[in-house]
């Protein structure tokens, strides 16, 4: 067979030399992308587990304990976010955004759920970002993009984007809905109304933003509306059921029920 002379062996070629540089540049980028994807998956899993843990607050007496345990878990997640920040040192965050956006959204969901349970307010983007500041000891020379505090130490930050924040909060509403239904199931008469108001505020916020936000947000609006309607229905049920008995009698009813169940406790 007739084979053409090869050009790639012409190692002196400027063109080939240039492409060898390109090869390295591309491989480096892809490798970084892969590492970020893996970090993102880890963050997703741990955040989800934190959310599961937090749902226990509706059934345990010691809420603080759960919150602390969750905070420890979240600290571990933040360490992973720190690793992302490390990877992004001196890079353009948006260049690799697709690799870790889903993990970050899940973290926002977890941390805002934690915050809501503790403070009954919506965590702000600033508050989230304030906890994503990492101290690093530099073994080698200081790199670009990291602020030098004193020799050998620097501060790394990670900035959650507005869109990731919004998407995380949109998912939060699903967890709030679950918490609301659980509260009703546990005989809690106040939390559902509180959650309903909070969820309604978030819903109104999202409908104020409407379709000016990113496409992914609009996609989640339907689920959000369903969650709200489930919560409103739950509050409605509490109200109509409660309407059958004068308000001042409720306390009696419940104290007797609690007593009733204390007796039952030994039964598996």
């Amino acid at each position, binding site marked *: 067979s007739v084979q053409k002379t090869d050009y790639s062996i012409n190692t002196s070629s400027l063109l080939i030399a240039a492409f060898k540089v390109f090869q390295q540049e591309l491989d480096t980028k892809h490798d970084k992308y892969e590492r970020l994807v893996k970090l993102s998956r880890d963050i997703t899993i741990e955040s989800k587990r934190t959310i599961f843990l937090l749902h226990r607050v509706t059934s345990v007496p010691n809420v603080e304990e759960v919150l602390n345990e969750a905070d420890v878990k979240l600290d571990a997640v933040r360490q992973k976010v720190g690793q992302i920040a490390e990877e992004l040192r001196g890079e353009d965050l948006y260049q690799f955004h697709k690799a870790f956006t889903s993990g970050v959204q899940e973290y926002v969901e977890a941390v805002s759920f934690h915050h809501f349970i503790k403070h009954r307010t919506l965590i702000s983007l600033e508050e989230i970002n304030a906890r994503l500041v990492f101290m690093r000891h530099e073994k080698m020379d200081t790199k670009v993009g990291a602020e030098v505090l004193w020799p050998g130490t620097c501060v790394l930050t990670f900035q959650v984007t507005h869109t990731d924040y919004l998407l995380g909060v949109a998912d939060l509403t699903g967890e709030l809905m679950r918490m609301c239904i659980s509260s009703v199931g546990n005989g809690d008469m106040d939390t559902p109304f509180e959650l309903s108001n909070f969820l309604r505020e978030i819903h109104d916020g999202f409908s104020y933003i409407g379709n000016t936000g990113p496409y992914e947000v609009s996609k989640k609006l339907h689920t959000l509306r369903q969650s709200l309607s489930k919560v409103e229905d739950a509050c409605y049920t509490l109200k109509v059921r409660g309407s059958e*008995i004068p308000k001042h009698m409720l306390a009696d009813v419940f104290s007797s029920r609690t007593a009733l169940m204390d007796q039952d406790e030994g039964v598996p």
Partner: protein
Amino acid sequence: MSVTEMFSYIQGFLSADQDIREDIRKVVQVLEQTAREILTVLQSVHQPTGFKDIPSKCLKARELFCTVQAQIADLKTKFPVEQYYRFHEHWRFVLQRLTFLAAFVVYLESESLVTREEVTNILGTEVDREKGFHLDIEDYLAGILIMASELSRLAVNSVTAGDYGRPLRISNFINELDSGFRLLNLKNDPLRKRYDGLKYDVKKIEEVVYDLSIRGLAKEQEAEGDK
């Protein structure tokens, strides 16, 4: 081996695979039929008149579970024992239904949660995966959750039938179940969705108990409910 031989060999494998699946499908269809029969037996407990002879219905269901055991024994012969998960999708659904039915029978009999071991005894599967045809943990959990939803219905209908003690006992049972599930880290999968449904069952039963409480109907049967 030539390309043609290679593809003939693969085609042989694929045919065998399809035959296995066909065999499995047939047994599973029969199993589904038996499951529907057990369901029909147990459904009648929701009728006002059904509350009286729960024990006899349980016995009848137990008998049908012998048929199930035979059918599952048949199913086991249809595929290589170590390839359970290769064909899992075929029987996943019916095993969940059967677990639900077993759990429901056990609950009706003793008001306790069936263990995974008990289910495997009732259905005639293995306990350990290594030993062969077993019950996947997620299928076991799914079956339990189907039962939870049946119990919320039972709570409602037991009030209609005038049994005011049962709802409170169901409530205690289901609350403990809920606490158990809260310990699990579920993925965003069908099981998670089913578990979300459990919250509604808990809520529904809570409402029944509330209705009984404000009318003072729960108290009289308290002693009875303690059993």
